[in-house]
């Protein structure tokens, strides 16, 4: 397992046209997203289940060509994700938005993990996911001798960035909270980069309980504070003030630009 800096991992694994999964649900890898912005990544197809402010920042910074997501907002407040809102309300179609419910998106990743083309899912009748095709062609229906089912197209990212609390040098990782969709994302992706708050010895990791086995991991990054302003259970709380500051400043295009300059590009 080759350890990398965050900058090196982003440079190596994030390329134009690639599908990039960004974890985690509730502990978003803002550090990875900000590094993508600093490296002027572009034409990225993001898979980001709980889109949140990370998706909003990538949209505003021009990183994305498409996003497949469950929702996009600030959980603190709650408050709008202003770049997301501005783009939609302006009728901007330069970024393709594929919206799926979180259950369906997780099922899509599971199909990707299992190397099958689609996954049968519980139906969501009468919703815009079906009636207005919010997913942009991700949903269909199948008939078989076993019965009929709603299905979701497999999602197979080129690379998954996954956050863990602890990791050992073999890439075994420990989560301190719920899995969300992160394990199936790591299984589905062609490459997985593990971003750990701390790299420690294998004995400590095994004692804590391995959530992401090193078998799935291609690169390891140690990055304390990787999900700030989200919190990491047992290490640091969600930074409410930083969330509120972003919401205030990103309410205008100019404010978002200043926020980028001061909080992403300034060392």
């Amino acid at each position, binding site marked *: 397992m080759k350890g990398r800096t965050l900058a090196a991992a982003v440079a190596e694994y994030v390329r134009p046209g690639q599908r990039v999964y960004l974890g985690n*649900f*509730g*502990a978003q890898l803002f550090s990875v997203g900000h590094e993508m912005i600093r490296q002027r990544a572009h034409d990225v197809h993001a898979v980001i*289940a*709980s889109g949140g402010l990370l998706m909003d920042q990538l949209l505003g910074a021009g990183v994305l060509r498409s996003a497949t997501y*469950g*929702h*996009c*907002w600030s*959980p*603190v*407040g*709650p408050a*709008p*994700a202003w770049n*997301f*809102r501005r783009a*939609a*309300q*302006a*009728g901007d179609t330069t970024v393709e938005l594929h*919206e799926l*419910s*979180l*259950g*369906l998106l*997780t*099922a899509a990743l*599971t199909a990707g993990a299992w190397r099958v083309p689609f996954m049968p*899912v*519980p*139906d*969501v*009748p*009468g*919703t*815009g*996911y079906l*009636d*207005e095709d*919010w997913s942009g062609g991700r949903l269909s229906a199948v008939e078989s001798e076993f019965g009929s089912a709603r299905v979701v197209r497999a999602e197979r990212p080129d690379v998954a960035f996954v956050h863990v609390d602890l990791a050992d040098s073999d890439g075994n990782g420990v*989560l*301190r*909270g*719920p*899995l*969300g*969709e992160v*394990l*199936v994302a790591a299984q589905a992706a062609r490459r997985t980069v593990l971003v750990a708050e701390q790299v420690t010895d294998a004995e400590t990791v095994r004692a804590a309980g391995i959530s992401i086995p090193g078998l799935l991991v291609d690169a390891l990054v140690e990055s304390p504070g990787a999900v700030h302003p989200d*919190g*990491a*259970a*047992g290490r*640091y*709380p*969600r930074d*409410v003030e930083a*969330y*509120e500051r972003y919401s205030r400043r990103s309410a205008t295009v100019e404010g978002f630009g200043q926020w980028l300059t001061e909080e992403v590009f300034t060392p």
Partner: protein
Amino acid sequence: MTTVDFLARAAREFRRGGWVFTGFHWPVLAGQCAYALDGEPFTQVFEAGASVHLPGADVPTSTTDYPAYANGFGWLGSTADVLLAMGPRFDRVVLDASNVDLRGRINSSYVGPRERPTVRLPGGGGAADIAAVARELVLLHGARDLRRIVRAVEHVTAAPAPDALVRLHTRWGVVRLGADPRLEEITADGAAFRAHLAGLGVPTDGAVTRTAVTADERAAATDVLRRAAERGYSVAKETDNR
């Protein structure tokens, strides 16, 4: 009804006990309030794949604020576990519903045409998955604008099953939603709400007048809102909460 009273009443849904799927915003606050009051034991389950049986060390800013409630983690699993496998088993599913219709359908996606909406809302997360399989769906509508309760929402983010029990808590009363909507409870200051529902064709004659919340309930809700204001909740910072 004040925000304190609304929250205290919503907390009763948790105090009934059991396994309660807890959505973002008002359900989080109502759950925190319920922990401070007498009632049947309850376990909250969040869509990221966690069960919690204790109040948070801080008021969680959302269902994904793990550091705030890591002290109460019980079971840890995945989004698929909760939304796709366990949904029909919950005793209750409690969701926020800021724009809702008489069938219990929620719109958290668009106001206006999808191609160029007047307001782009955040989207539904796991609401569609869990609402579709909930046996009992409790919707919390904490807004002060009656017009957000409509005959039919413009876009449907989440829709309950036809045979689900769906009830909507508002500041002015409780409404049974679904195929046979009707006003069940009304507050003393709910005349405008009654008229609004009647205008939508909802029977209102059988509604009972709500009893007041207790001093203990009011104290618990006041404390949650005070702490929630420090955690960024916009509704807790409003000046006329109490």
